[in-house]
């Protein structure tokens, strides 16, 4: 397929990726986590910090790490000292927004080689619980007085999706089982569960019905990084660059009461933007492997539909039929996703981009999908649960 990406000065490739362990608590400081991932990405590209022109940093709320102006704080570990460096932030969607922002640094001709780093250290926000950070995302007038819990939104969204599409919890639990099993092939994984069953998910603690413990990804510390380069540089650096073919991002209203809870419109629009750029008109056929954002099991289904990888209400059917398994016709989250590898917010999204990079290069090791793959997609979701970020990559 030819790219319709003709208005940009430079084609942009990913030439290296790096990832720390994802764990509930890591000893390394946030700066050190950023460095671990950045260094690994540079090593993989065969570059050193001196080769990097610009740096893009992504991190979700300052309140997790407990350091205000986290972008500036992370800049040193991310390699941004004495270079043009910027932090981008769209909540949970940040991880995929980092390479999007890095893309325009290169596509514009402004920078030739960009280091893009995402980091999150949720364990610092220790007491009473990391979740408390989310107490302050609510509308202070109509929601806050009800003392809401973050999972409320997801419980209601999940239930709405189940109702509208006639989906059973058993069907949704299949996603969690698939991803937590997939994670066993990933060296960074926090929650590899090789023997987990649908029954285990259905019997796990009910948090806010219908959301149960194993429907949810854990809280994590971790960092991820990728190196982006212009075409000329990329061809010098590697024989196997992975091209960024399309990018897209959109916001819906912050009022979740004013959104279609059964269908993620914010993802559909972001995907359409990316597909237009990449020349994709039939994503189900043209995308070979995808990493949709899966902090909850039902969100993988939700997002597959928003991305056009399944028709409305069809994602649970594809899942049941095994289409989304690693050896299936459309492998979904072969990495193990957030449900399996862990969810250090911004780093989790960038982990997905790294996974597609490795899958398209045939370097995913035990996680490598069975069929040959040429075009892949990563997507994240966040802010007040209404930001969608999409990246399409190809070889």
């Amino acid at each position, binding site marked *: 397929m030819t790219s319709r990406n003709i208005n940009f000065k430079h084609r942009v490739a990913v030439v290296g990726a790096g990832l720390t362990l994802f764990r509930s608590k890591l*000893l390394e400081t946030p700066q*050190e986590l950023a460095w671990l991932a950045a*260094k690994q990405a540079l090593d993989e590209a065969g570059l*050193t910090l001196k080769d990097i022109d610009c740096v893009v940093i992504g991190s979700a709320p300052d309140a997790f790490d407990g350091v205000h102006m986290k972008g500036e704080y992370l800049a040193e570990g991310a390699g941004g000292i004495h270079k043009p460096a910027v932090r981008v932030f769209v909540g949970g969607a940040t991880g995929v927004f980092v390479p999007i922002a890095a893309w325009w640094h290169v596509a514009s001709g402004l920078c030739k080689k960009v280091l893009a780093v995402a980091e999150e250290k949720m364990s610092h926000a220790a007491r009473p619980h990391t979740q408390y950070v989310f107490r*302050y995302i609510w509308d202070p007038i109509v929601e806050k007085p009800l003392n809401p819990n973050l999972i409320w939104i997801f419980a209601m969204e999940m239930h709405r999706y189940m109702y509208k599409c006639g989906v059973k919890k058993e069907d949704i639990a299949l996603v969690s089982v698939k991803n937590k099993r997939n994670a066993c092939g990933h060296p960074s994984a926090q929650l590899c569960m090789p023997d987990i069953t649908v029954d285990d998910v259905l019997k796990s603690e009910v948090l806010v019905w219908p959301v149960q413990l194993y429907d949810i990804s854990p809280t994590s510390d971790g960092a991820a990084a990728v190196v982006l380069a212009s075409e000329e540089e990329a061809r010098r650096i590697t024989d196997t660059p992975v091209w960024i073919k399309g990018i897209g991002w959109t916001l819906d209203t912050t009022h979740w009461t004013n959104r279609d809870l059964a269908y993620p419109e914010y993802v559909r629009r972001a995907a359409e933007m990316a597909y237009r750029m990449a020349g994709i008109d039939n994503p189900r056929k043209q995308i070979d492997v995808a990493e949709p954002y899966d902090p909850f099991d039902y969100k993988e289904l939700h997002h597959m539909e928003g991305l056009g990888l399944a028709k409305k209400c069809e994602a649970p059917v594809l899942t049941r039929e095994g289409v989304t398994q690693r050896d299936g016709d459309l492998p979904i989250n072969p990495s193990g996703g957030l449900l399996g590898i862990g969810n250090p917010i911004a780093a989790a999204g960038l982990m997905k981009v790294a996974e597609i990079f490795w899958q398209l290069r045939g370097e995913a090791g035990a996680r490598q999908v069975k069929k040959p793959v040429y075009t892949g997609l990563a997507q994240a979701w966040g802010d007040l649960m209404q930001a969608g970020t999409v990246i399409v990559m190809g070889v």
Partner: protein
Amino acid sequence: MRRVKYFPEVMEIEAYVYTAGPVGTKWLESLRAGKLTAAYCPKCGRLFLPPKMYCPFDFEEVKELREIAPVGVVETYTVVERDFYGEPLKERRVLAFIKFPGVEGGLIHYVKTDKPRVGMKVKPKWRDERKGLVTDIEYFEEA
């Protein structure tokens, strides 16, 4: 305050628990042992503070701390007259940025002196009971 118009809220998590990092942890352990150390980069040979597991100059991995001579030089200082809440302190305190010869970076710490000056040589006054905190050095004093 009219309740219908204003929604007061305190945006604080009850407690943050920070990690010091692998090299930072060693550095704190050496403080507890009464030793002043700095991170050592095997690539460029620089010694630097604050300690961390990478060299901020060339991105090399750093694992080693080296003991440094516990004699620093006051690079600049200030005199603190009031506490965090603006109340006058019983005793004014000298706060200095102290550099150590051959070490990049340095430490901020109290200096016990009536006559602070830039260029003053200072050494740490260690506490008898140390916990692995930067305050294991009670203050610096003229060397």
